[in-house]
């Protein structure tokens, strides 16, 4: 009994600071400026459809790119010598530990019209290319910031795959593509699921990356919400409604993703 009691402070804390705030958001989402009940905020959201479409698309592209980059890398890592593994993992982690605003700022310097990349291209008589303030730059920012979130879960699951399983498949006549499809892929599925969620969720709701690399032109759901609370179009009622919809999208994605997981959610491995 005593043991169970020890989680009471936690329960109280979480109810107070997780459930109650979300309750306030829901309340605001259905309230007018004068305090009356309304569905108007939710209905109004339909006019922001392009923003939602764009956010989801960019986040999906970023997730796919992250996956394509990270999957082979994680595999190579998991088959390498222990020392190599340790060093490489560290190399992947270091940028993650630096503040993401600084790293994104670094990309700003690189991508500008007068930035370093265009200067180098100019040297070879190429360009200049408009790179910053494009959707492509936003995707690049997302990939850059969230790539480690894809590599780490993929690597940790692949490190557990026994080399002999792969060899057995080869002995039984699988070519490398078949090995990937029939052995590697199914065995690494939990890592893939975790990786996808961990890249998609922050990507779709970011407002900093689109602000810094998208020039305020490539608006995402996050920008829209931020703008309604502390930005140039103060309207917390609308902002709450938008947050509510964003949460619903997340829940749907998480629901789909967790249906792939056999066990009860295993905890996000970092």
């Amino acid at each position, binding site marked *: 009994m005593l*043991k*169970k*009691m*020890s*989680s*009471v*402070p*936690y*329960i109280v*804390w979480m*109810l107070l*600071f997780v*459930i109650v*705030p*979300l309750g*306030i*958001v829901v309340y605001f989402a259905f309230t007018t400026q004068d305090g009356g009940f309304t569905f108007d905020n939710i209905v109004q959201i339909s006019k922001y459809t392009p923003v939602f479409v764009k956010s989801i698309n960019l986040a999906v592209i970023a997730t796919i790119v992250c996956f394509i980059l990270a999957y082979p*890398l994680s595999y*190579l890592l998991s088959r390498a010598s222990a020392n190599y593994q*340790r060093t*490489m993992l*560290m*190399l992947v982690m*270091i*940028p993650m*530990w*630096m*503040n993401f*605003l*600084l*790293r994104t*700022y*670094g990309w*700003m*310097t*690189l991508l*500008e019209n007068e*930035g*370093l990349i265009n*200067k180098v291209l100019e040297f070879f008589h190429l360009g200049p290319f408009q790179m910053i303030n494009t959707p492509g730059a936003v995707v690049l920012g997302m990939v*850059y910031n969230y*790539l480690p979130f894809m590599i780490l879960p993929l690597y940790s699951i692949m490190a557990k795959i026994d080399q002999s399983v792969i060899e057995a498949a080869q002995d039984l006549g699988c070519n490398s593509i078949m090995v990937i499809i029939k052995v590697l892929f199914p065995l690494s599925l939990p890592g893939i699921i975790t990786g996808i*969620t961990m890249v998609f969720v922050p990507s*779709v*709701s970011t*407002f*900093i990356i689109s602000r*810094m690399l998208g020039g305020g032109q490539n608006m995402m759901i*996050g920008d829209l*919400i931020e703008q309604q609370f502390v930005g140039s179009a103060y309207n*917390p009622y609308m902002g*709450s409604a938008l*947050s509510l919809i*964003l949460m619903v999208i*997340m829940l749907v994605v*998480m629901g789909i993703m967790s249906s792939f997981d056999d066990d009860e*959610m295993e*905890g*996000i491995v*970092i």
Partner: protein
Amino acid sequence: MKKAVSRIYVGLILLFLYAPIFVLIVFSFNESKSRSHFTNFTVKWYRELFQNELIMTSLWNTVKVAVLTSIIATVLGAFAAIGMNAMKKRGRSLMMNLTYMPVINPEIVTGIAMMLLFVFICTLVQWVFGIRLELGMWSVLIAHVTFCVPYVVLNVLPKLRQMDNNLYEAAMDLGCTPLQAFLKVVIPEIMPGITAGFLMSFTFSLDDFIITYFTNGSTFQTLPVTIYSMTRKKVNPQINALSALLFVVVLLLLVLMNVKQARDGKKNGRDGR
């Protein structure tokens, strides 16, 4: 051939990860403010950085919050995990859902929800007690603890599950009081989980921007918030100097940790991990 391809591939990814960081570091020594022409070598931006009161205060604020957050979150989370472990399946899964909520919720939603709550608390306090309360360190601290606790729980819980419950009983049989048994048997068993949770809370709190941005009120600035406001104004190469310094600190910490880990690994035998 295959090896060469994979080497190039790994090299390209590393280049991608480090290019912007190195550019920042190189240009932190640039005398002019330009971000594409390197004129002359200088360390004046570093000097200015250390004289920049705003940056130094926010650095101090950041550390303060991170230390307090990780301590509170660790205590709260460790006890919660012990309690959850003793629960029946239904209660536990309910608790798990509660725990996952801040983890899966987009940060911006957590941020604005917290902001609305804190503003509400402020008006309530003013109304009931007539005391003027405003957002500041307390609100940032509460917000940080809230998004860090789940990670402590998620790290400690598996360790508790691995632990043999008989150990605790055995200690009691051998004459320990429940408190002694808890301190001498349970805590050491789950220590790795607690440490991991503590470190994660510490780094998450140190690095958080979005949630702090919404809950910091008017005067309490943490380093990431200050950096953000700096990136929105005229170029200030102090940012580059700051990046370079942070990079070196992170590098040193990780190398130290790794060396220690490698040494421990050797001590415990080949497959110590």
